[in-house]
């Protein structure tokens, strides 16, 4: 039987041949992401900035301008209205998201505020339905953003320690640098495309961390095995061999995961689209970083080569790069 093979047998690509280019590309991408993040900012959802979102559903097309005109006289401050498109929804189902800033002196929106919004919208679209109303007070949103950053930092820290214990400190630095790369690039794309950034996206970022480290660890694991096998070959070659040997698996796993995610991205509905998009993006970036970022850093830092004996030359690992 003919088998589907995404990667031919016995590949021998030189992954370091373009090291300067790929590594440079990653650095540029990181700088760009940070630049976009700091200049354009993130389109924070109410989880992180407080306020109220109302999700509406109506049989007639959403006219953002009329909605806006209806809400204008209420004096609610910053109001943003956007129509939500979904390829799977029926023709007579038009969904809009309306976001209103947190009101002065209120934590979560009071029933009065919510009902004035709903009444105002009913005047322009009589059969409108309100399928969800969510409101987060400024106090909670401040804490949520703190928790989110803490979660990302804690994950990176935990992984740094775990990889350090299981491998060598160079590996853990390489792995965490790759993860940092993935996280920053994900934040960058959310900033550049101004996709709503809320709590589930943080969960997605943590998932990306989990996925990307998975990939990196598999390569590292093979590298460690090969380092024991080929004691005399240059580190660069052994690394290249390891990446080539695991390439088929890297592509297969990314392939199945992406297949599942793309199905979810298209068919899973708009409620979790941001979340799924973040993970999908992360899988692509994470796969790239496992192959092109993590091990470059390990190569740069060098590793202990003699795994057969107890660690005799700890603290002297740089000397062994070309051993």
């Amino acid at each position, binding site marked *: *039987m003919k*088998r589907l*093979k*995404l990667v031919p*047998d016995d590949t021998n690509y030189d992954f370091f041949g373009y090291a300067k280019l790929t590594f440079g590309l990653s650095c540029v991408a990181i700088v760009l992401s940070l630049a976009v993040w700091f200049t354009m900012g993130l389109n924070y959802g109410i989880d992180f900035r407080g306020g109220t979102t109302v*999700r509406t*559903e109506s049989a007639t097309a959403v006219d953002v301008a009329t909605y806006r005109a209806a809400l204008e006289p209420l004096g609610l401050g910053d109001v943003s209205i956007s129509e939500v498109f979904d390829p799977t*929804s029926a023709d007579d189902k038009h969904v809009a998201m309306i976001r209103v800033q947190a009101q002065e002196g209120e*934590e*979560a929106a009071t*029933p009065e505020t*919510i*009902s004035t919004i709903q009444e105002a919208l009913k005047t322009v679209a009589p059969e409108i*339905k309100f*399928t*969800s*109303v*969510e*409101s987060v*007070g400024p106090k*909670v949103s401040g804490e949520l953003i703190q928790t989110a950053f*803490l*979660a990302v930092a*804690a994950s990176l820290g*935990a*992984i740094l320690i*775990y*990889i350090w214990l*299981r491998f060598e400190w160079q590996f853990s630095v390489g792995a965490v640098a790759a993860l940092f790369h993935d996280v920053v690039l994900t934040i960058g794309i959310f900033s550049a495309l101004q996709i709503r950034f809320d*709590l589930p996206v943080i*969960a997605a970022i*943590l*998932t990306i*961390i*989990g*996925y990307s*480290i*998975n990939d990196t*660890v*598999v390569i590292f694991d093979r590298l460690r095995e090969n380092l024991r096998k080929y004691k005399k070959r240059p580190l660069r070659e052994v690394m290249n061999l390891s990446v080539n*040997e695991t390439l*088929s*698996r890297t592509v*297969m796993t990314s*392939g*199945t*995961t*992406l*297949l*599942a*995610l793309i*199905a*979810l991205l*298209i*068919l*899973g*509905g708009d*409620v*979790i689209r941001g979340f799924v998009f973040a*993970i999908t993006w992360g899988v692509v970036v994470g796969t790239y970083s496992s192959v092109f970022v993590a091990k470059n850093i390990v190569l740069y830092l060098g590793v202990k080569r003699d795994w057969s004996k107890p660690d005799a030359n700890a603290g002297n690992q740089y000397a062994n790069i070309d051993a």
Partner: protein
Amino acid sequence: MLQISLWKRLLIALTCAVGLWLALPNAFYGPVEQHNDAAAAIEKSGATPELETQLALWPEWMPSGLVNLGLDLRGGAHLLAEVNVADVYASRMEATWPEVRDALRSLTPVRRQESPAGELRVRLNDPTKMAEAMETVRGLARQVTTLSGAGSNDIVVSGDDGLITITLSDAEMQATDERTMQQSLEIIRRRIDEVGTREPTIQRQGTDRILIQVPGIGSATELKAIIGTTAQLTFNPVVSRGSNGNDNPGIGNLLLPSTDESGVFYTLEAAPVVTGEELVDAQPSFDQNGRPAVSFRFDTTGARKFGNYTAENIGSPFAIVLDNEVISAPTIQSHIPGGSGIITGNFSVEESTNLAVLLRAGALPAGLTFVEERTIGPELGQDSIDAGKIATTVAFAAVLLFMFASYGLFGFFANIALIINVGLIFGLLSLIGATLTLPGIAGIVLTVGMAVDANVLIFERIREELKTAKGPARAISLGYEKALSAILDANITTFIIAVILFMLGSGPVRGFAVTLGLGIVTSVFTAYFVTRLMVVFWFERRRPKQLTV
């Protein structure tokens, strides 16, 4: 080599069977849910023919645990409330005042002074008695009865130049906060139970917050109407009635607005005659004119106090105060000995029903501030379930096809393991009563994509080992052996992330963490042990000389 002992085989098969057995009810969600509801209803209030038929929808000997659907899938309301614990300090001080006054009476007359909430200031008419007065007030202190606060007093007394200041001690504040939270949780639980919704979640979060999730309720606003009111009911003597909201009521008195008549204010004595705590029952009813009202009954002490007061004050007005607003202030017509009465006001039927519920369940010890609220409509939840189902099916099919196309027979083994894997996830979710949320569904889809990773690692490894021509049996066993370290490392790191997500997240995110974490455990089990069992079975029967993976 390629051998698995019999007891291991049985263990693996048994684990799969039990997991799938537990997952089975989820395939018949509607009937099983009706069965469970009927069983609960019969437990509570006896059987009816209707309930019996619902009970019969699912056989008793089958497992009936279901995966709970989160609010984002079922629809309902979510509230995060902050308990204003400091409210209680103020009422504690209010209660301390008469004690202090009476204790000092024999020494020197005292006057109460203006003070910030949570503090009591008392001026002595005779400042020379300061030292003795301080001693007496300190004598009123009680020991704090908690583990951490053991040995410290409940009040701190300081004095200066004839002025004594009393506040709660830190240990007592902590103990009070703890009590306030426990009471608030209990009262909220009782109120929601009174309304009779199913499977509400009422949890304490952090030091002073309570998370309330009620599936199936129409909106958070409705929920707030039930739990947002403190419902502190008191009956106070009326001093005077006026129309100026800025009047100085005088020390020991309160100036409160009327609920119905705008611009009317009552000056009341702050110390109530009877409070809502002394109620034993409250029911919605109607007054003589057929308007909605709430009838109530006091317990024995409440009834005695109420009886005595009404006997002594015939002809004077009497205010019924709910949460610092005067509902009504009727004049006492006669002695009311029985300890029951009726509250009238401008109620709608709904309001009187709600008020009766609130009074029955008891008053919240402190006010609530809602810091987060979410309402998800049932249609949106259903849409999400539908979309999730389609997406999961498509994702599943795509992965199965892809695996089979890539690895042939071994891919087929992996596919069976994958199907068992998803079954096991549902089995475990049902077993621990976890909640499935929309991101949780995404977690399952992601697990489907990632679960095959372990198999990919193994199969790729077998392919490599085959190249060195050691024979199929050796290649398979080496493949499983050598891939294990990578599989474990990769999954442990992801598991760490799931744990962090679980600890720091809440609601939907936590649901995601649960499915991701369980998915990791089950996928390692199915991808490693279950496929291996299948491969060994196949190998023992076929004994192939050549192997293509």
